[in-house]
């Protein structure tokens, strides 16, 4: 199972889409999908490639940091 889907099961705030890029070319262009898998986070940051669950989760959490630490 895609890690993103597994992640979504653990927290109601998380939703995970698996998108067939050739069927949604406009979206693929918008998110600059040149290689797959490409994981786009909240429509902005992105992680390319597949990796073990711990590394993937840490990489995702890292992209959230600025928002969570905005007050300090």
């Amino acid at each position, binding site marked *: 199972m895609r890690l993103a889907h597994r992640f979504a099961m653990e927290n109601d705030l998380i939703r995970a889409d698996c998108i*067939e890029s050739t069927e949604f070319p406009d979206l693929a262009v918008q998110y600059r999908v040149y290689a797959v898998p490409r994981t786009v986070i909240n429509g902005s940051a992105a992680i390319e490639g597949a990796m073990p669950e711990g590394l993937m989760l840490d990489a995702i959490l890292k992209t959230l940091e600025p928002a969570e630490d905005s007050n300090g």
Partner: protein
Amino acid sequence: MGLIRDEDATEIRQRLTAMTDPVTLIHFTQELNLEYGREARQLVEELAGLSDKLTVEVHNFLLEKETANEYGIDKVPATVVRNGKDYGIRFYGLPAGYEFVTLLDAIVNVSQSDSGLEAVNKEKLSKITQPLHLEVFVTPT
């Protein structure tokens, strides 16, 4: 002609015996999306025929806007994998090739209400306090 070959059907049936609770595939289609839309619908319907615990609910994206909004669906074909609870798991497009295996895994995990993640990662995920939307782009290889 069926999209799922007989020899594959046997293997899929076997795999789906790992299911515990019933799972529903909420599928959104639209007649305008002929190239892939029809195949995607046929695939989920054939798949649902391989387990008593798996059902498909088909909605028309254009005519059933309210249901589409309820599930946050903004493009089709789309498939929601859920049990009594909607975990936020969506597939957009035809889940063929490797993504078909991903779909089977999602069905089994949702059926068991268990992500199968390591405990340490489950804990990290439980601490997320802001909305997180993951869009994983794939190709049918």
